């Protein structure tokens, strides 16, 4: 009987993608909540990884008529010691061993894995980014062309002459195409030869050679090879991101969370533009130190506030590890705005002379309590200082935020700048 064997492995995969997207759309609010929770617990660098999330099954249940309770009869295998009429104690929980399957009850959390893209998408959604920005962030990085061997088809401009000619040569040799010299030699011989018999012989030979010469072209269309190009993501230069934060007692958890989201967003953004992104965490009170991420956000610290200390630390690190010629330098500072008045002059000087000239972008984020409306926040000493610098023409992005949604506008300058660059390029 006829049997068909079909290889389906090459069929486009992820047939379930559409269903999966429908599911995510339906569970959007729930998944978003889960992503928000997960991203709070994550390190900045991990924000771009996908991952497992758990959501409650609220609104996602698929109800069926199910029966429960009543008299139950069951037949089981593996009797060892029971005889008819024995009584067994009931298991303590009322549910019994019958239920307990994975996704039956509506209270159970539903766990599944989000891909990297899905996660970032939802994360960006959660930051309440405007659509335009989302598109910019989500778009893939610049693609460059790279030579990738040869192809049998292509545009005439891409014909690889040397490859084509050498293939043609190989073909001509393989098919024994008569050489022009041989024909010439024979013709010369014919001209000189008097022997009639020999002449006929040579003529026949010549004819055969010429026919073959005609049949086998010098260059056949099958010889032609085109240079093939592949688009590859262009390796862009590396970037370093400085996270500066005031960790004195006046910074609350909410403020730190805002700051963290701000850093995450900057990281996501940089990650899209640069292959390699380093992060340096500098926290400061009245003195600054470079710390790891965990200490940065969660380590206890106390003391006064000297912003210049952080800037000094940053210039030191810049000088020793990140030469501005090799690195794109981004800096983001978060603070509640307190600073010693006597420190202002030094801070201003460091910024304008040492830091701003080498930075691509310097953002200052003044974080406030959730309850405060930003326009109610009185200008802090740091804010006043930075505003003065900006009015003098220093390239500073600054923003006061007390809610997550307000974080994004800080980046607007960044996007604008990028747009201008693209137009130039």
């Amino acid at each position, binding site marked *: 009987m006829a049997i068909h064997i*079909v290889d*389906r492995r090459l069929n486009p995969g992820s047939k*379930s993608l559409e269903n999966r997207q429908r*599911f995510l759309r339906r569970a959007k609010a729930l998944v978003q909540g889960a992503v928000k929770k997960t991203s709070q617990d994550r390190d900045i660098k991990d924000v771009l990884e996908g991952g497992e999330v758990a959501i409650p099954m609220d609104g996602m249940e*698929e109800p069926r008529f199910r029966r429960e309770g009543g008299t139950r009869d069951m*037949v089981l295998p*593996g009797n060892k010691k029971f005889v008819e009429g024995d*009584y*067994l104690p009931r298991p303590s929980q009322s549910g019994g061993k019958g239920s307990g399957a994975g996704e039956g009850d509506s209270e159970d959390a539903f766990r599944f894995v989000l891909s990297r893209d899905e996660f970032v998408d939802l994360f960006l959604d959660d930051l309440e980014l405007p659509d335009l920005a989302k598109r910019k962030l989500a778009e893939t990085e610049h693609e460059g062309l790279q030579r990738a061997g040869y192809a049998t088809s292509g545009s005439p401009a891409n014909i690889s002459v040397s490859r084509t000619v050498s293939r043609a040569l190989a073909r001509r040799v393989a098919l024994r195409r008569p050489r022009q010299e041989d024909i010439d030699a024979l013709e010369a011989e014919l001209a000189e030869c008097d022997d009639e018999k020999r002449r006929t012989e040579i003529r026949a030979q010549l004819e055969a050679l010429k026919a073959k010469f005609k049949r086998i072209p010098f260059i056949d269309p099958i010889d032609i090879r085109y240079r093939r190009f592949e688009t590859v993501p262009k390796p862009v230069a590396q970037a370093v991101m400085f996270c500066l934060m005031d960790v004195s007692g006046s910074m609350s958890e909410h403020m730190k969370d805002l700051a963290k989201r701000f850093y995450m967003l900057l990281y996501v953004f940089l990650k899209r533009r640069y292959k390699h992104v380093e992060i340096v965490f500098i926290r400061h009170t009245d003195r600054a130190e470079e710390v790891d991420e965990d200490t940065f956000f969660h380590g206890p610290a106390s003391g006064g506030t000297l912003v210049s200390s952080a800037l000094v630390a940053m210039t030191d690190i810049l000088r020793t590890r990140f030469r501005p010629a090799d690195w794109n330098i981004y800096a983001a500072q978060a603070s509640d705005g307190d600073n010693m008045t006597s420190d202002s002059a030094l801070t201003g000087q460091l910024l304008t002379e040492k830091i701003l000239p080498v930075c691509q972008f310097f953002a200052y984020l003044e974080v406030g309590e959730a309850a405060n409306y930003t326009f109610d926040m009185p200008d802090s000493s740091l804010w006043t200082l930075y505003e003065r610098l900006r009015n003098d023409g220093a390239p500073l992005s600054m923003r006061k935020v007390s809610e997550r949604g307000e974080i994004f506008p800080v980046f607007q300058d960044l996007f604008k700048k990028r747009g201008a660059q693209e137009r130039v390029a």
Partner: protein
Amino acid sequence: MAGLLFEGADWDFHTLQRVHDACEEIARKELGLDVYPNQIEVITAEQMLDAYSSVGMPLFYKHWSFGKQFAFQEASYRKGLMGLAYEIVINSSPCISYLMEENTATMQTLVIAHAAFGHNHFFKNNYLFKQWTDADGILDYLEFAKGYIMACEERHGRLAVERTLDAAHALMSHGIDRYPGKKTLDLRAEEKRAGDRRRHEEAAFNDLWRTVPTTKTKNTTTLSAERRRALLGLPQENILRFLEKTAPRLHPWQREIIRIVRHIAQYFYPQGQTKVMNEGTATYVHYRIMSRLHQQGQISDGNFLEFLGSHTNVVFQPEFDDRRWSGFNPYALGFAMMQDIERIVTNPEQEDREWFPDIAGKGDVEGVLRDIWANYRDESFIGQFLSPALIRRFRLFHLHDNPADTNGIKVDAIHDERGYRRVRRELSRQYDVGFIDANIEVVDVDLAGDRRLMLRHSTVKGSQLNETDARRVLQHLADLWTYDVALTEVDGDKVLKEYVVSPRTAAVAA
């Protein structure tokens, strides 16, 4: 003696062809199997996951619940909680078997013997499948269903279609005809019917008619209650069919979607009733074929050992107090029963002659088994052919748990002379669809009054519906019906519980 079909673990498409031919030789000549033409498809693990989440079918309409299923399964697969099946087989003609590319050559042989011959024969010959499924038409029908639902989404919006499907899915288990009707199923005609329905609507549409005053409708109250119910086909246990035919305010496309869901539920109806037999048949067939191949020297000793390893895993039955216990393994029970029948037919004890006078010692194993495969389902199969020897081997016992009994759970019967019949009857009842699904019927519609739809759940052994889920399902039902829906749970004449659910304001139907 034929040579080896393959060596080592590697295979290519020629190997599959050879393996199929060798299996076919044994399946036809020795076992006398009668199968649909085979189509073997090689797929990747990812595609297998895809297939899992669309109930194993090669194509299916889109719905979020399949995505949920997929997300869940993908997560457990990635964590290593779940392995994937070696194969999926589809009851269609040609019979499609999906083989995983990771399988070794031995596994592919096993899987071809199991699916392409075992399951295939069962699909083609078992009376339930013959009665309820249309193997020739199913793939075309699914194609039509997929296209139809997609077209509906375009015409009527995704949300409306999704709501209708949600509701229909909730009632899927009650969208099945349990008794064959006059007409046999012809899925190929379905597509044409849907098209006709729409064309008729378009042709018959005449806006002027709306403005013509109608004559007073006949007074329907003169119809007796009996007559009215008979006209509506009540009582009706197929709730989806009832909705499709009589729900007052559904759009035609919603009726068609309900019909699609109903047909698909019906298609899977036999599979639920024949798990033990189907797997038992397939496992028995692959065991016979593999053993014969080995005997004929077509499979090497090493590969045969590999086969025995996975075969043993497949037919492993944990005992009730084992941590791995999660109910009867249909492969284990089915295979054990098939082998037991083989023993009874060829080499019966005195006991077997008493219990199975019809088949004991009859000698024709294949003939007896083919007859059983064709004419039984799990419930009747176990009820007839579970032998005392097998009850002893599995050490089966029957527990009776009456909540009113304070002593605890009673051991009602064990594997002894007094218990065999009771154990067998109870086990067979566990596989009886009549007991597995709640018995819910549409009993009446208050046509003269508020059009309330009335349903009745006749409880068995005091088990009632889970309230949360019942309310949710009834909510879906009310949304489709667009008027109140009432469900009473009764035990004989005694009313145990009543539900009344009103349709949501943003109901499915307009």
